[in-house]
């Protein structure tokens, strides 16, 4: 592809936090330490990801990793994304703060997910893979992957969490326009899907099950691989174009954030904006607060436990230590489907464990209120996930004392909410009620998580 003009503010490299903090490389639990694992004799070891993609998750040698030319050309079609000061929102709130927002909704698929979809499909296509399969929650990841596959000539199969699919069927139409096969999850296409109806008789669906179905589907089909939309270090790496641009854009304005706020599903949107700011803050020897905002219906950081856990319902992916509610937790079907994953990714979990990030949980009704206020003042309707970040940001700036210097905050608006207009409309007429944690499901799932960790044999040096 030739002739794409690259803006000087478009980063040419991804920022790799693992160089500065190698302790964040996820260490997986050896399966030999897990008692009672089913007999896996004869099971072969394959590379699930292209080697050059997979090794990005382990790279501690390079602080900056070059973005391949093909990916840069695609980024140049919609990046850099806008950074704006939310002056009208500041006035409406009457707070002692300067609020900046980065807007990732201004691309064809409508969210930050495109940043990693383009990168991943580039590597898979180059490695000779013909079809990508995935699981998606809110559908933004599925849409991004479908688009990236279409422009790079791959087929795409998507397992989409049923509760979200039914909330916004138009997004499914969008995935199909990009040529994807879309299946409701749980489905009867895979054993994982069929089994899921035991814990979830209504078939609401979870991202753990949709992911498990995608993995099972990939294992059963030739030249097919599973792509992950968040959580893994390499995915967070691809998203660091967001934060690098934000730092450069704020530099042009003579600003640097005191505080970065983003919503937390498994961590790619949060990491994408926060990690480069953290790197820049350390270079400049100044403090910065990083705040992850999660859904109160799926409070993996504020109510989860730091344990070894499975990231999907199939259970063949590496077992890493994460903040988790347990992989069988079925969160209520909130509209922020992207925040329903039961665990944070290993990197953000390690950051929460060592105090590098703070977390807060926001109720669905508070998030819709904040999203509407942002729309009415700034003219942008945030996706329900991003509306959680806005609500968290409003909470933070509202607490900032008047006698201190104004607080400079950076909030990431990870996607637009134009396909969620129906949900916003229902909220304005009072048809959406506050959604609480499903305590029964949570207690059962946390119990299963503890049982799972009990099966782990302690390493010799720890006994």
């Amino acid at each position, binding site marked *: 592809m030739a002739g794409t003009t690259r803006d000087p503010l478009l980063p040419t490299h991804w920022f790799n936090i693992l160089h500065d903090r190698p302790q964040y490389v*996820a260490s*997986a639990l*050896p*399966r*030999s*330490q*897990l008692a009672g694992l089913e*007999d*896996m*004799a*004869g*099971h*072969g*070891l*394959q*590379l*699930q*990801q*292209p*080697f*050059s*993609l*997979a*090794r990005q*998750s*382990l790279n501690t040698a390079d602080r900056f990793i070059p973005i391949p030319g093909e990916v840069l050309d695609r980024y140049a079609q919609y990046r850099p994304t806008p950074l704006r000061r939310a002056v009208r929102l500041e006035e409406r709130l009457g707070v002692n703060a300067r609020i900046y927002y980065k807007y990732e909704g201004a691309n064809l698929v409508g969210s930050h997910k495109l940043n990693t979809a383009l990168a991943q499909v580039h*590597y898979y296509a*180059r*490695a*000779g*893979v013909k079809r990508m399969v995935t699981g998606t929650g809110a559908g933004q990841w599925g849409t991004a992957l479908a688009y990236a596959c279409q422009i790079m000539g791959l087929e795409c199969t998507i397992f989409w969490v049923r509760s979200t699919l039914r909330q916004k069927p138009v997004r499914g139409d969008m995935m199909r326009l990009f040529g994807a096969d879309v299946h409701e999850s749980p489905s009867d296409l895979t054993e994982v899907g069929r089994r899921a109806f035991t814990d979830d008789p209504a078939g609401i669906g979870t991202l753990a099950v949709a992911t498990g179905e995608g993995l099972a589907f990939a294992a059963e089909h030739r030249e097919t*691989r599973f792509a992950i939309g968040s959580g893994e270090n390499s995915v967070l790496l691809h998203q660091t174009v967001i934060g690098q641009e934000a730092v450069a854009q704020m530099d042009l304005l003579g600003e640097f954030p005191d505080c970065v706020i983003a919503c937390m599903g498994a961590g790619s949107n949060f990491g994408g904006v926060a990690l480069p700011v953290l790197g820049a803050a350390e270079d400049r020897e100044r403090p910065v607060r990083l705040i992850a905002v999660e859904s109160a219906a799926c409070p993996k950081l504020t109510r989860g436990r730091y344990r070894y856990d499975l990231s999907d319902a199939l259970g063949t*992916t*590496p*077992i*890493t230590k994460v903040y988790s509610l347990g992989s069988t937790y079925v969160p209520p079907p909130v509209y922020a489907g992207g925040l329903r994953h039961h665990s944070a990714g290993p990197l953000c979990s390690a950051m929460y464990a060592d105090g590098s990030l703070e977390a807060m949980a926001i109720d669905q009704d508070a998030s819709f209120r904040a999203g509407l206020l942002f729309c009415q003042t700034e003219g942008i309707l945030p996706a329900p996930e991003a509306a959680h970040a806005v609500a968290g940001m409003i909470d933070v700036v509202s607490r900032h004392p008047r006698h201190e210097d104004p607080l400079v905050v950076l909030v990431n608006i990870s996607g637009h909410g134009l396909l969620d207009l129906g949900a916003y409309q229902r909220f304005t007429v009072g048809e959406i009620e506050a959604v609480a944690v499903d305590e029964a499901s949570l207690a059962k799932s946390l119990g299963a998580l503890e049982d799972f960790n009990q099966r782990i044999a302690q*390493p*010799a040096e720890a006994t």
Partner: protein
Amino acid sequence: MVTGDNSSKTVVQPKLDRSQAKMLVSDVLAAVIPGLKAEAVDERQELYADLGMDSLRFVQLLVELEGRLSVHLVDEDLMTIDLVNVADLIDLVERISPSAGE
């Protein structure tokens, strides 16, 4: 399979024989699997079922091999491998190790 990094190197390792390849595999397995001793590695052991390898450790292992053999592994060739036991891994190392004079 491999594009040897042969443009600038003047000293190239000779291609490994099987016992050297086995020694290298044992060392690398011991480096990526906590608690595993190199001398305890046996060709018949299964990587997944017996040694507890998973995809993450497998990538660590390939990164180690790439470094120790001074080769550049190509994505496309690695996507089709399917290794059940240590002997399969030794076969892979024999294939990817650079030949003498390369």
